[in-house]
């Protein structure tokens, strides 16, 4: 069942109510993950109802209108949102997960929402878990699709094992709390159907509403202080080339040659869990379920067997090339190309080969 099929089936069932979507800011715009969550949310409702996007103030807010509110509204309108709630509160000057959940609880109750949706980011997962805890409702995390079955019953597909296993599940709840998997096959691009929904008369202006939640002191006990990261060059999450090293590297000294290759290709080194567990490299270089998810043009995996926890972190790579001594290693089934051999022989030869070519 694809998400778009789920949407039409939901409409046919008739009585699905409004859907609220937590939409996160990312600098001056809406986070890509949240635009995907909006697209997912739109598949849950009938065309007559639409999605309410809830935007919280950025860090450092003083509780008044933000200069970019109109811009965010326009971005959301383009993605089919008809109703935008801008949360404003003198108390909400930074990310506060319980206060965010409390706000969503109040908006969901006021609008009689059938579902509250968020991207399965750290913030989205955290806020929806708080919402589940304060309402006693179940939360289905990392959903790929959801289909309204009537009477508060939803048919779901969600990820387990960071996507290596799928679960078919039934959710029964007065309000479905769903997080949307990062790799759900939903395009954040505005579809024709969504455009129609958002602009029945040709005007794509959503309603912008300022809402002020009622917050208690307890809702604000957990509140983040944000400080810019000490940026040290290229980031693993966004690098165009990642050179991976695993158990086959053999020890902490073996990474120099991978670093050299990564430098040559304008990329960074990523490692498997065994490498960080052994203390050969720091954890921030780990690619996988408990490390960083990467999406480079090229992932050159050297001496990595390809355990599912590792593959969960690199399946968004455009191309995977493996260098491995074992032609039967699982990584070979995931890679597009492979060289069978010892990386300590292949990688230096590759560096020499690339250098020779550039001369």
């Amino acid at each position, binding site marked *: 069942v694809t998400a778009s099929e789920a949407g039409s089936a939901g409409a046919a069932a008739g009585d699905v109510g409004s859907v609220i979507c937590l939409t996160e800011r990312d600098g001056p715009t809406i986070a890509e993950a949240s635009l995907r969550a909006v697209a997912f949310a739109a598949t849950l409702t009938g065309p007559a109802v639409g999605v309410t996007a809830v935007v919280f103030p950025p860090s450092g807010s003083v509780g008044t209108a933000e200069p970019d509110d109109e811009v965010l509204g326009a971005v959301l309108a383009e993605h089919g949102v008809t109703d935008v709630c801008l949360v404003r509160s003198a108390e909400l000057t930074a990310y506060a997960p319980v206060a965010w959940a409390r706000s969503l609880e109040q908006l969901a109750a006021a609008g009689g929402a059938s579902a509250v949706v968020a991207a399965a980011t750290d913030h989205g997962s955290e806020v929806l878990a708080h919402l589940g805890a304060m309402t006693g409702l179940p939360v289905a995390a990392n959903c790929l699709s959801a289909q309204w079955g009537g009477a508060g019953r939803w048919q779901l597909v969600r990820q387990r094992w960071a996507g290596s296993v799928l679960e078919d599940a039934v959710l029964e709840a007065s309000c479905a709390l769903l997080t949307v998997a990062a790799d759900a096959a939903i395009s954040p691009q505005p579809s024709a159907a969504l455009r129609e929904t958002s602009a029945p008369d040709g005007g794509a202006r959503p309603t912008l509403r300022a809402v002020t939640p009622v917050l208690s002191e307890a809702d604000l006990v957990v509140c983040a202080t944000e400080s810019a990261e000490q940026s040290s060059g290229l980031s693993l999450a966004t690098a165009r080339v990642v050179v991976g090293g695993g158990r086959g590297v053999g020890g902490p000294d073996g990474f120099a040659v991978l670093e050299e290759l990564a430098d040559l290709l304008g990329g960074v080194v990523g490692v498997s869990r065994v490498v960080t567990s052994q203390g050969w490299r720091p954890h921030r270089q780990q690619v996988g379920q408990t490390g960083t998810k990467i999406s480079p043009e090229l992932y050159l995996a050297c001496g990595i*067997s390809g355990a*599912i926890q590792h593959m969960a972190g690199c399946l968004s790579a455009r191309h995977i090339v493996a260098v491995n001594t074992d032609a039967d290693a699982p990584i070979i089934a995931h890679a597009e190309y492979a060289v069978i051999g010892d990386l300590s022989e292949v990688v230096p030869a590759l560096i020499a080969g690339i250098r020779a070519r550039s001369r």
Partner: protein
Amino acid sequence: VDVLVCVKRVPMVGGKVVVTGDGQHVDTRMSGFTISPHEECAVEEAVQITEREGGTVTVLTLGPPAAADQLRDMLALGAHRGVLLETDDREWGPIATAAAIVAAVGELGPSPFPLILAGNEAADTGGFQVGIRVAHALGRPCLTGIKRLEIAGETVRATREYRGAQERFEVGLPAVVTVKEGINLPRYPSLPGRLRAKRAEITVLRPQWQADGLRKQALRVPAGSARRAQILGHGAAAVPALVEVLSELGVLPSTTRGDGDGAAA
């Protein structure tokens, strides 16, 4: 400070995951069990805290009788006490699990466990919520996804990363904190640790299962591509072919666009 650490027994999966014929479980006949990686770090963090500040570490798990093995693994790493919330074969959802943990905290005697640690999410079900549900039920603040933790008297200071920035939090004890792998490097069990763990008594409680509103029907492995990599060759002899492939993929440094494919630029 007396610390309670909640861990979960999960299948140890390697290169391939197989679902049992009835679609209800991950097949573990060819593998063993372990605990979620984030939780192993939670146990290490608790042990380090009590080594510095004094106090005890209690490790708790909810699972079948065999989950006592995972408790003993954690006792070998330096935890002092093991508690098993023994279940039957049914899957316990996050609501039922959190309720059982909250009830156990009440039953485990006078110690209120000022600090409760858990993993950010379980490796298998990935629900991202048991710690938060426990915190709400106990009326405590909850910090999640923590990569650096400092306990100074009654104050908890914690840091995590989000969208390239550091988020810092400060709350008072009692609190619930869920951590992520990378907060520390878990130690290996010592031989005396293993021996102590083998003899240690494990407290067993039997909580009541409850429905969760989210019901698993079946598990399946997503249809992967049945492809296999094109083998470019063996050893250094394969390097010219590999360089060619990298060139085609457009990832070689631009200065390499020389002779043959210069026109493409």
